[in-house]
C-alpha cells in the first residue's frame, strides 16, 4: 500500500489527472456493460442438473386412491386416501468421491399426493457430471432440523406435530381406511402418522421423547449424468412395505391412530428400511 502511495505521488501533475480520469471512465464503462449483460445473456447449455420425481406404488403398481383394492401382509383390505411427508438431506454419492448434499440451503422437501407440484422437485444446484453409486436421504426431518414454528405457511404448516407430543412436524401422514376383521362394508380410518414418539410412565405422564426419523440409502441407485443433461430420477414409495418386513403391521391391532403409540411407530420405522426404491426415468 505504502509503495503504491509513494509511486502515485511521484507521477507529475497532468499525467496524474489523465490517469485518474481514464481509470474512472474505464471503471464506469465496466458498470454499464455489466448492467447490460444481464438482459442479453445467452442460456447456458452446459448446465447439469437433476430432477427428482416422487412416485407411490402398491405391489409394484401405481397407487389408485380412495378404493379398497389392496390387501396388506396381515390380511387387512385397505385403501389410501392421501400421503403427505417430508424427506430431507438428499445425498448423492459420486463414484470414488465424497458425498454431496443437494439444496443444502433448503434441504427439507415436502411431498403431498394432493398437490401435484410437490411430486416433482427440480433441484436448484448444479450437479457434477459423471457416475454416481447411490442416492440417500433422510425420511422425515432429523432431530436438529425439526424445529417447531419453522413453517408458518401452508401446506408444510399443517404438518405440525403438537408441542405436547414432542413438537416439530409430522414426518408423514399416510391416511387411509381398512376393513376390520368381520366387517363387510364399514371401513375404518387409519391415520398412519409418524413423528416424534413419547415415553410414558405408569400414570401416563410423558418422561421422554424418541426421534423416529431414519436414514435411507436407495438400493441399486447408481446412475450417470452426462454434461449438460437434466437427469430425471424417481424416489418410489412402495406403500405395502410399511406394513411388513420385519414387522407384520395389523390395522386391527394398532387401530386408527398411532401418534401416541411409540410401539407402533417403532414397528413402522423398522419396516421403513425397504419402503423406498430408486427408479431412473427417461427424459
Amino acid at each position, binding site marked *: 500500500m505504502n509503495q503504491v502511495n509513494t509511486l502515485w505521488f511521484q507521477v507529475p501533475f497532468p499525467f496524474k489527472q489523465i490517469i485518474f480520469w481514464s481509470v474512472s471512465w474505464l471503471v464506469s464503462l465496466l458498470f454499464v456493460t455489466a*448492467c447490460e449483460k444481464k438482459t442479453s445473456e445467452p442460456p447456458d447449455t452446459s448446465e447439469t442438473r437433476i430432477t427428482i420425481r416422487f412416485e407411490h406404488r402398491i405391489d409394484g403398481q401405481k397407487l389408485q386412491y380412495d378404493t379398497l383394492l389392496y390387501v396388506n401382509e396381515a390380511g387387512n383390505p385397505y385403501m389410501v386416501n392421501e400421503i403427505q411427508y417430508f424427506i430431507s438431506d438428499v445425498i448423492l454419492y459420486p463414484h470414488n468421491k465424497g458425498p454431496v448434499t443437494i439444496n443444502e440451503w433448503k434441504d427439507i422437501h415436502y411431498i403431498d399426493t394432493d398437490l401435484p407440484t410437490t411430486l416433482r422437485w427440480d433441484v436448484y444446484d448444479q450437479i457434477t457430471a459423471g457416475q454416481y453409486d447411490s442416492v440417500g436421504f433422510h425420511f422425515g426431518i432429523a432431530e436438529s432440523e425439526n424445529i*417447531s414454528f419453522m413453517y*408458518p*405457511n401452508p401446506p408444510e404448516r399443517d404438518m405440525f406435530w403438537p408441542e405436547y407430543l414432542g413438537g416439530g412436524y409430522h414426518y408423514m401422514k399416510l391416511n387411509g381406511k381398512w376393513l376390520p376383521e368381520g366387517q363387510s362394508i364399514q371401513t*375404518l380410518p387409519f391415520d398412519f*402418522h409418524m413423528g416424534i414418539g413419547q415415553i410414558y410412565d405408569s400414570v401416563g405422564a410423558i418422561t421422554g421423547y424418541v426421534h423416529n426419523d431414519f436414514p435411507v440409502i436407495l438400493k441399486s441407485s447408481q446412475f450417470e449424468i452426462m454434461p449438460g443433461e437434466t437427469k430425471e430420477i424417481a424416489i418410489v414409495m412402495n406403500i405395502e412395505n410399511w406394513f411388513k418386513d420385519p414387522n407384520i403391521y395389523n390395522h386391527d391391532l394398532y387401530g386408527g391412530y398411532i401418534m401416541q403409540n411409540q410401539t407402533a411407530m417403532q414397528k413402522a420405522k423398522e419396516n421403513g428400511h425397504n419402503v423406498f426404491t430408486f427408479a431412473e426415468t427417461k427424459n
Partner: protein
Amino acid sequence: MKTFLRIGFIVLLATACAKNTEPELVPVYKPTPDTLEIPYGFPTRLNIPDDNPLTKEGIDLGRLLFYDGRLAGRASEGKFMSCFTCHIQENGFVIGKPRPFPVGLDGQPTRHAMLPLVNLVWNEGTYGWNGSVKSIEDDVLAVITDPTEFGSSFLAVEKAIREIPGYPVLFEKAFGTKEVTVERIAKAIAQFVRTMVSSNSKFDKYLRGELQLTQSELNGFVLFTTEEGADCFHCHGGSGNPLFTTNLFYNNGKDSTFAGESDRYSVTGNATEKGNYKASTLRNIELTAPYMHDGRFNTLDEVIDFYAHELVWTPYIDPLMHHIATGGNQLVPSEKEDLKAFLMTLTDTSFIQNPAFGKPVSFPGEKTMILK
C-alpha cells in the same frame, strides 16, 4: 476539457443502471400504501391481489361502504342493508342469532349459516363454506345481486353511491379518479376486510409467553391436540397453525346422506368430497353460534357432544375422523368442560372492540340524505 470529462463521467455513472422508462411528465396520484404486521406464528404469505394493494385511503373508504346501509342501492324503497347488517363486530362478525338464518332485503334466508370475517387475508382463495368464492372482491359482487342478500344490481349500487355527496371524492383519493364502479366498491371493501386481523386472544398471549392458561384450559389444549384425546388439531390447527383453520374441506361425519347439498363436491365434482365443508376457524368460536354450515348446533356444548358421541359413519367420512370407530372421542363430562374452556381462550376481545374495524362515526352526505 476537464469539466467535460467530469460531467461526462457523472452522467455516465448516473445513467449506468437506470431502467429505460418513459419520463413521468405528469405526477401520477398515488394513495398511501399500507402494510399489515404479521403476528407471531402467523403465515408470512398474505393473499393480497396485485391489482388491489392495501392503501390507507382504500381501507378508509372500504370501512365506510361496509357500514353504510345505502350500499345496497335500495334506499329509495326505504330498504337499507350493508355488510354490517349481518357481519357484526361485537359478535365476531356474524349476526349472532340462532337459526333461522339471516334474511336478505327481500326476506329470503341465506343458504348457509354465517361465517365470521377474521384473518381472511390468509385464506388463499376458497371463501365460503364450500370454497366456491375465489376472492373477497368476488364475494362483494355476489352479495350485491344475491337474492338472499342485497337482491340489487350493479347499476343501482353504483348510482346510489355516486349520488351521495362526498363519496366520489373518496374514490378519487383511493383510486385516482372520482369514478364510482362496483369493481372499485368491491376493491375498497376487500381492502378493509383484509385488515381484520385477530391475534390477541388469551391463547395467542399464552403462545407468546405473556400469560399462563388455567389448569382446565391447559387440559383442554392437550385434549385438542392429541389423537387419544379429542383430536381436533388435524383439521382446525393449533399452536403450529394459529389461524385455527386449515381452510381445507372435510366430511366430519354429521349425516348419512348428502343429496342436494351445496358441499365441496358441488363445486369440484370430485365424488370423494361429498359432504365436505370447510373446517372453519375456531377463533372467536364462543361468539359465532349457530355452528356448522347449516347452523344445526346452537351451543359449543352441543358441538362437543357431537364430536364425543354422535358421529355418523358413511364411506365419505374423512380419514382424519378416526374416532368414528367408537362413534366419537368419548370425552367424559370433565374433559368436555376442559375442551370448552380451551375453545373459549380463542376469543379475542381486543379484536371485537378494535375501533379500526368498528362503525365509522359519520358517513358522507349524512346531513343531506336519509341514512340508516
